[in-house]
């Protein structure tokens, strides 16, 4: 879409009188660039904005517009939503904030004080969903809230899971038609994961499906003894939806206990998998397991990216997936068929795939008494941060770690090596000196060819990264890293076009929106949300 036409549409949207209710068609639309209506803009999760006011020719002029400081010392992992000039985000753990997207001034705050809950990696939240005038948020104490987007008043509050049983919720919900879906975290603590659908109006449960099959269900045999009851396979990150296939997709987390598989012999289905559920019934239609019998905490909770493109000479519905286990995949998202996969970082735990797409284990690359160096690190090549796909450039953009590794010791928490020992804190909010040498983990943003999964270009972030990426029709990729830099890269070449030091670690993914014809780029760093735009 050309710049002028985008601005015209933006102006028309903003000049509308009255608050626009968000319809499900709005959420599905690929042409609603002024707004950002779901976690990764739309339910294909391409995290690609059609806005092009900020482009390679002027991005170097970007200026800070406003900053919103969260009253929280938790990691700021949420991606905001924007609806007709109103920006909604989450102050961790579970306060919802409505801001003027043009000035950053507060409209209202909804405070939820969670009951005591245990989370593996911080009392965090990754964002909201919206439908009509209702915002939805999962809470660390296992609840799903519906909040009036105009007033900030609570509409309903439903228990999804029991926080006393070590369940929690950190993921953004997803809305499809009249349902809102949410899954449960706690996989490291021995829960039995599930995802459930709720009525958007009443909060009543519609369906609930466990990610670990119970007795008599297919896949139950992949767990020894009673290990299925506490086997994890949590769902704690954003899902995707294909309307034609009527499938909703989520990646699942590691099996528990994380680093010791001796008590849970077998493949441990559906841990470390992508699972396709019937959107109406919750029935599991297919699954693909990325890491059978995982002992390295390789959660597969990355955000599924859906792409319609040519494959072997015909148009196919594909799913792109850069996994924590160091492998990148192309799957058929209708059938779950494995089409292509290969390492995208230094990987030593597997040697290729068999004909079905199952990874072939490298001999001896398992936890041992004396310790086995396994690559990538327990934190993975990538963790949960969202990736992006540009239909304009037909490139898949991923911010991840390269050359990471960790010592896997039988029955113990893996031991990091050298200065990488510092990396065992999962995305702390504080900046700290970077001391890695050239052979230790570093952060990169890379563009991958979705046919070959080969890297087309690389931008070296230096320090590792917990941040995601955004691509725009302005031919730019935005991303950030642990050192607090926020960068704009040429989407074709990876050339650095602009950077800003935000003084706090980037633990979230960028997004873009427009108000009154002006494009903004937003990114959370440290405990604040920053927005940038061109000078007027």
């Amino acid at each position: 879409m050309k710049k002028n036409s985008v601005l015209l549409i933006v102006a028309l949207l903003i000049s509308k009188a009255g608050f626009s209710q968000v319809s499900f068609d709005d959420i599905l639309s690929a042409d609603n660039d002024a707004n950002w209506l779901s976690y990764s803009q739309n339910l294909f999760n391409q995290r690609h904005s059609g806005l092009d006011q900020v482009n390679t020719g002027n991005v170097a002029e970007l200026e800070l517009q406003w900053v919103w400081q969260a009253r929280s010392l938790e990691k700021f992992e949420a991606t905001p939503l924007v609806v007709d000039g109103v920006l909604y985000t989450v102050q961790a753990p579970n306060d919802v904030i409505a801001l003027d997207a043009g000035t950053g001034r507060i409209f209202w705050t909804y405070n939820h004080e969670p009951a005591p809950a245990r989370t593996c990696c911080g009392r965090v939240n990754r964002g909201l969903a919206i439908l009509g005038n209702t915002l939805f948020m999962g809470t660390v104490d296992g609840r799903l809230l519906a909040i009036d987007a105009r007033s900030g008043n609570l509409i309903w509050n439903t228990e999804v899971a029991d926080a006393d049983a070590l369940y929690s919720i950190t993921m953004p919900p997803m809305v499809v038609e009249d349902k809102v879906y949410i899954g449960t975290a706690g996989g490291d603590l021995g829960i039995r994961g599930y995802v459930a659908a709720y009525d958007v109006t009443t909060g009543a449960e519609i369906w609930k499906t466990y990610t670990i099959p119970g007795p008599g269900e297919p896949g139950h045999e992949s767990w020894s003894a009673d290990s299925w009851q506490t086997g994890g396979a949590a769902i704690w990150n954003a899902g995707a939806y294909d309307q034609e296939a009527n499938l909703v997709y989520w990646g699942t987390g590691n099996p528990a206990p994380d680093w010791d598989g001796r008590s849970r012999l077998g493949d441990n289905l559906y841990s470390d998998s992508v699972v396709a559920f019937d959107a109406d019934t919750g029935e599991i239609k297919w699954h693909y397991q990325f890491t059978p019998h995982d002992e390295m905490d390789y959660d597969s909770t990355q955000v599924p990216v859906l792409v319609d493109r040519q494959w072997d000479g015909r148009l196919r519905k594909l799913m792109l997936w850069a996994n924590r286990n160091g492998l990148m995949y192309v799957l058929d998202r209708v059938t779950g068929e494995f089409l292509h996969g290969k390492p995208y970082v230094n990987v030593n735990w597997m040697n290729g795939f068999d004909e079905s797409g199952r990874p072939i284990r490298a001999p001896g690359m398992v936890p041992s008494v004396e310790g086995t160096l396994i690559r990538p690190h327990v934190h993975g090549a990538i963790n949960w941060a969202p990736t992006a796909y540009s239909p304009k450039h037909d490139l898949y953009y991923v911010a991840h770690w390269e050359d990471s590794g960790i010592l896997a010791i039988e029955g113990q928490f893996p031991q990091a090596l050298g200065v990488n020992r510092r990396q065992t804190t999962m995305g702390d909010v504080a900046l700290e000196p970077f001391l890695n040498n050239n052979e230790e983990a570093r952060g990169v943003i890379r563009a991958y060819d979705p046919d070959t999964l080969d890297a087309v270009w690389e931008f070296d972030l230096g320090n590792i990264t917990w941040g995601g990426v955004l691509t725009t029709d302005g031919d730019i990729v935005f991303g950030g890293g642990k050192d607090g830099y926020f960068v704009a890269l040429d989407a074709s070449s990876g050339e650095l076009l602009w950077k800003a030091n935000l003084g706090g670690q980037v633990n979230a993914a960028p997004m873009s929106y427009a108000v009154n014809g002006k494009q903004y780029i937003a990114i959370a760093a440290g405990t604040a949300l920053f927005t940038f735009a061109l000078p007027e």
Partner: protein
Amino acid sequence: MNSLQTCLSLLVVLLVVTTSPSSLAQHETGADLLGGERAFRDYCANCHGPDGDLIGQVDLGHNNFRQPYSDEEIAGIIMNGIPNTPMPPTPRVTEEQAYMLVAYLRSLGERDDGALSGNVARGQTLYEGRGKCMDCHMINGRGSVLGPDLSSIALVRSAKELEQSLLEPDSEVQPGNRFYSVQTSNGEMVSGRLLNHDAFTVQMLDSNETLRSFEKSQLISFGFSNPDMPSLATGYTQQEIADLVAYLSTLRRGAAQ
């Protein structure tokens, strides 16, 4: 009265005050009742509600306790709680405050203000119909978000306060319910509930239930205005007011069961 009599009288008064706090309940002053009311709001209303009737069979506002208690027993319950029940001890309440509370509760029970008895069903009909209350207020998801959400209003407002709000809506407006009006540079007049303002901008929820934000430098005029809440003192009978109050007094969403 000679000086001896004066001294004896003073001594008697001192003895009564210093040795028998329980006598406050029978010989309370206006200050005692105010102190008791303040203590009630600080320590009791959170669980018992503004009218004292949110807990089971207990209706403090009408002196209906689980069983007849003496003043001393009530004061003891206030300070020490009731073991094995949700009624907790309140160690911050002094003995003097406890007896002020007793005096206040006794005064509520003795009150006969001649108020009309309202009908809840008629009140709801009036609320949803001729009163047009839903145009601005929401109850359990139905209505407008422009004015205060009334789903839990009985948890924070007594019947007396509700009646006052209906008759004199401008007499006490909570900061979160203040109204604001602006005139934009193109002449548009916008008024609504003030959400936030600073030296340069103002944010409000306008009468179309739209979140609006303005740069003050772009406005012709701006400032506080009165809410559009009309007084029901005219156009409604005393019985209708009582009916509305009766209905609003039932709105206790989220109250402990």
